């Protein structure tokens, strides 16, 4: 039993503690040390997550690199880790994004001097910020690797705490007390929504345990439970299964978020720093959609099928609703947040269409949305940091003075509207096709989302970047080297995964097949199948 997974989770956790313990950042040099340590830890984590993904054999067992340590023996709770293709890919995404976010947020947590003598508002801000990011990373990776339901639950909930402090404690500078009040409101809203979801889930987790224990299976081990459900050793009555499903699903739908549980997201993403907003939408929220795939479908296959049509309707409403709201936003970051709500609709739709295209697409969507939204949001953050305003109307003509910034912002927007050649197209089209084969009407309605996405992405670009140069932006500098280093890998990945997504699909496909067979679903067969001669595989 190798301890690779535990080490991968432990490195950022230990890094968080180490970073928090470093001496206070009253000087530039000390702050730089803090940041360098945190960045180094995240780089090591990235290497480890990449090793995990390469060690994973797509043709091997469902869960690999498994480890199990006993934890709370009386309740059958274990510290069990294991990866499937989906978890490996999402953990890798997390490990890629964290260093990028750190680099992008390099100065976001520098303490501002409050008095001329050089005293600072809070000398430990820098340590706190970077330690919190590492803590989030550790918890998210545990969630992706956990194969014990209770273990998952604990980290699913625990990550709220560092996120709460990241949202409430650090934001865009401008605005003074009013901004602080808004931020605090956003953080509390984030916490309450997610806490409520978590509590409902806890009830369901315990409910599941109670039922299982009655039938002699006092365990939280995911594999034991799913195989017991599959071969009938563990029997849930219809009502119980539905209730438990809803309990789990509610928590994940709040976190994902699914319409109409989304209203915390625009506040949180709007008020937090751009880096934190990326952590929310690209990393933490993915745990919600990931958990739908792994836990809802795996543990409650029949209920999943029962509720699938209703969930599809909610997700397609979310697609259109989020996109329309994005069109109507005046605030750049809130616009990105509503665009994300639309995208989460696509992801959830792909999962519950219960087809292999839909689910492979949904998994790729999680990755691609993470990368492309990170690029879009972080460049938006660079833009906002230069002007000190989040309002779209305060910008205009930026492409003239900062062409590279404008160009990368456009690429982010084009990725968001799923332009072919960029990664999000691959996943969005797979989700649409996968939905359409089973539910044509819902697939067609969702397709309207691609027009609306073009509208909000290009409107944002037009209003901020084109037209005459506004006086306030006329001296705006173009992207700095550090900022380019943030954007370049994201853009490169977006293009690479748009043209050659095969490495990802190879990892993901077998896990999707396994999930679908748990639900006893097969893809609808074409009416008049033709031999795919174009497929060069055989040539």
């Amino acid at each position, binding site marked *: 039993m190798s301890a690779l997974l535990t080490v991968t989770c432990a490195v950022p956790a230990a890094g968080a503690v180490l970073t928090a313990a470093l001496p206070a950042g009253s000087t530039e040099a000390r702050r730089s040390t803090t940041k360098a340590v945190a960045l180094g830890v995240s780089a090591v984590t990235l290497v480890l997550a990449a090793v995990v993904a390469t060690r994973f054999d797509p043709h091997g067992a469902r869960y690999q690199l498994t480890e199990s340590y006993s934890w709370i023996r009386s309740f059958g709770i274990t510290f069990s880790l294991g990866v499937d293709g989906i978890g490996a890919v999402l953990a890798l995404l997390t490990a890629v994004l964290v260093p990028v976010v750190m680099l992008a947020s390099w100065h976001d947590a520098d303490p501002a001097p409050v008095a001329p003598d050089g005293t600072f508002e809070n000398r430990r801000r820098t340590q706190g910020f970077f330690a919190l990011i590492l803590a989030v990373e550790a918890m998210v990776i545990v969630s992706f690797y956990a194969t014990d339901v209770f273990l998952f639950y604990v980290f699913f909930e625990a990550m709220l705490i560092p996120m709460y402090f990241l949202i409430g404690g650090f934001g865009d500078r401008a605005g003074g007390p009013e901004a602080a009040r808004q931020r605090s409101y956003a953080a509390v809203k984030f916490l309450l929504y997610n806490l409520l979801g978590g509590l409902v889930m*806890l009830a369901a987790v315990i409910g599941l345990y109670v039922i299982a224990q009655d039938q002699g299976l006092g365990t939280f081990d995911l594999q034991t439970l799913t195989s017991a459900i599959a071969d009938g050793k563990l029997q849930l009555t219809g009502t119980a299964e539905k209730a438990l499903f809803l309990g789990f699903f509610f928590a994940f739908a709040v976190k994902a978020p699914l319409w109409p549980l989304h209203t915390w997201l625009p506040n949180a993403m709007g008020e937090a720093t751009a880096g934190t907003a990326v952590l929310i939408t690209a990393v933490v929220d993915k745990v919600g959609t990931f958990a739908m795939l792994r836990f809802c479908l795996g543990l409650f296959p029949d209920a999943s099928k029962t509720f699938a049509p209703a969930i599809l309707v909610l997700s397609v409403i979310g697609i259109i609703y989020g996109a329309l709201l994005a069109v109507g936003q005046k605030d750049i970051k809130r616009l990105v947040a509503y665009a994300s709500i639309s995208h989460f609709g696509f992801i959830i739709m792909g999962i519950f269409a219960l087809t292999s295209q839909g689910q492979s697409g949904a998994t790729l969507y999680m990755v691609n949305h993470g990368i492309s939204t990170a690029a879009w949001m972080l460049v938006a953050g660079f833009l906002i940091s230069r002007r000190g305003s989040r309002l779209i109307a305060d910008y205009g003509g930026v492409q003239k003075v900062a062409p590279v910034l404008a160009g990368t912002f456009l690429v982010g927007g084009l990725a968001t509207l799923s332009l*072919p050649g960029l990664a999000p197209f691959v996943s969005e089209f797979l989700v649409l096709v996968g939905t359409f084969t089973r539910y044509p009407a819902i697939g067609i309605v969702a397709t309207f989302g691609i027009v609306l996405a073009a509208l909000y992405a290009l409107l944002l670009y037009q209003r901020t970047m*084109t037209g005459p140069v506004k006086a306030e932006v006329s001296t705006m500098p173009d992207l700095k080297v550090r900022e380019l280093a943030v954007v370049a890998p994201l853009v490169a990945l977006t293009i690479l995964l748009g043209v050659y997504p095969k490495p990802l699909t190879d990892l993901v496909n077998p896990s999707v097949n396994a999930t679908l067979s748990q639900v006893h679903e097969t893809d609808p067969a074409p009416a008049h199948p*033709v031999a795919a001669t174009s497929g060069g595989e055989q040539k």
Partner: protein
Amino acid sequence: MNSLIPLLVAAPLAGAALLLLGGRALDRFGHWLATALAALSFGFGLALFSDMLGREAEHRAITKHLFSWIPVNGFQADISFRLDQLSMTFVLLITGVGTLIHLYSVGYMAHDERRRRFFAYLNLFLAAMLLLVVADNYLLLYFGWEGVGLASYLLIGFWQHKPSAATAAKKAFIVNRVGDMGLSIAIMLMFVEFGSFSFEPILGSAGTVGGAAQASEGKLTAIGLMLLLAACGKSAQVPLQSWLGDAMEGPTPVSALIHAATMVTAGVYLITRSSAIFDLAPDAQTAVVVVGAVTLLFGAIVGCAKDDIKKALAGSTMSQIGYMVLAAGLGPIGYAFAIMHLVTHGFFKAGLFLGAGSVMHGMNDEVDMRHYGGLRKHMPVTFVTFGLGYLAIIGFPGLSGFFSKDKIIEAAFAKGGTEGWILGLCALVGAAVTAFYMTRVMLLTFFGEKRWQPDADGNAPHPHESPKTMTIPMVLLAFGSVFAGGLFAYNGSFLTWLEPVTGHSEGDSPLAPLVVTLLTTACMLAGVAVSYLMYGRSAVPVVPPVGSPLTRAARRDLLQDDFNHAVLVRPGSALTAALVYFDSRGLDGFVNGLAATIGGISGRLRRVQNGFVRSYALSMFGGTLVLVATTLLMRSV
């Protein structure tokens, strides 16, 4: 040889990447690099063409598989190419005319500080369009299709500092996206029906029957209509035509590229490529011919009213593409002629746009034809080449447009029955109107009195002939405008060339071909005569007269924008505003209210922050209650 197909696309794509990433170092020679790469692609095209000619008609299609693009269970999308006579025709047109437009742009954009970027986008445009026509499956075609949309967005909005250009670019992209939606749905329908979206398995090829033959007519009609929607977007056909006129905001070479070699021809390609589907879906074909006929008249009417030379030409493009769509909708009677007209149109429309650009170049970027006049003496090369393009487009006997347009009108009659008569008459009327507005353009620009006006800075225009880099492409295109049609019609050579791909049937015309030709020529002459009477014999007012209601409507593009605004934009904005309100007040307010009630906190949620610990405790308490209740409940069920 097969390995050359990817290089067709790769050459201009590499140019785009180099020029965009290369930085200022490439400013001095980047434009020549881009032009050379376009020419290189043309060279590859010629090599492939001569290779293709060396094989029997049935064995001309070649394929090249690069790699598996999106492999998911049951879903197979590959980066894989197929070159047959139809795509070969497009490749030569795109790269040939495209290279000339590159060359022209070297002179035209000489003074633009962002010239390097302009050439990068031109190269990108070629690459995307080439990908579109050499793809061997609909999803890869879609890749090129949207790539064309992106390139046109970047080029139409090239002068981004002008709000009108930025708006036009966005409009083009979004209207096209509506069409793209059609293409997406068509691909999904194919996947549901056939489990594939590759050309050969669905459409068949020389000697084999594709899966389309087994599908029900209803399914094929649905697919056909969705493909038509897509074609309407890219080819600016009614009802998705509104972007084309505004797209004139781009630099003039872009207009030439969009209208002649790339973009608007994509819809005609799509329909012709999918002939196996349309042939089995007569209702979809009817929709295609209706769209074509309506658009050819719509564009012609708009073309009559415009004083902006580029917008008059844009109206004419719509109209001419309408002819092609009409022909493609006729089925095997018309496919080959649709493509033949597409190629000849590629020559003369590119020539006309480049000529218009040359005129603007000499006239301080003035576009209002009412401010031109008498330019023939000052710009002789432009005058002659533009004049030949003019004669070609109106279908003057012996020139390119004559042969290709005449064939389409013949085919429209050959459709047979009442339908044939209606379509034939529409096409004839269109021919007359085309002659009218093109003669108007010609007279207003090159003949009559000088009506030159000083520009905004007070500089009087000093019209002069354009530099060699601009006139050489114009001369070469003029050659095409004169001779291409005759060459294609000679011995039915073009028909023989395309027939293995598109098939051909003669139809059943109530009129003898000679009668149609005479009628067409008579209509053309009538249009010229009326135009001469109106604009050639009396002085042209510098300020446009008020005009009839139809003229005024035509000046506003037959109220297309007013319509879209009233039907889509205004209700859409209202809906968005309502939803924004609902989201913050309604939905959020409801949830906040709920939270406040559950928590037993009388104030609004924002007060929670002061007593945060208390609310946390309350939540915990509530949670525990839920827990206990569930445990009890689960035991009982």
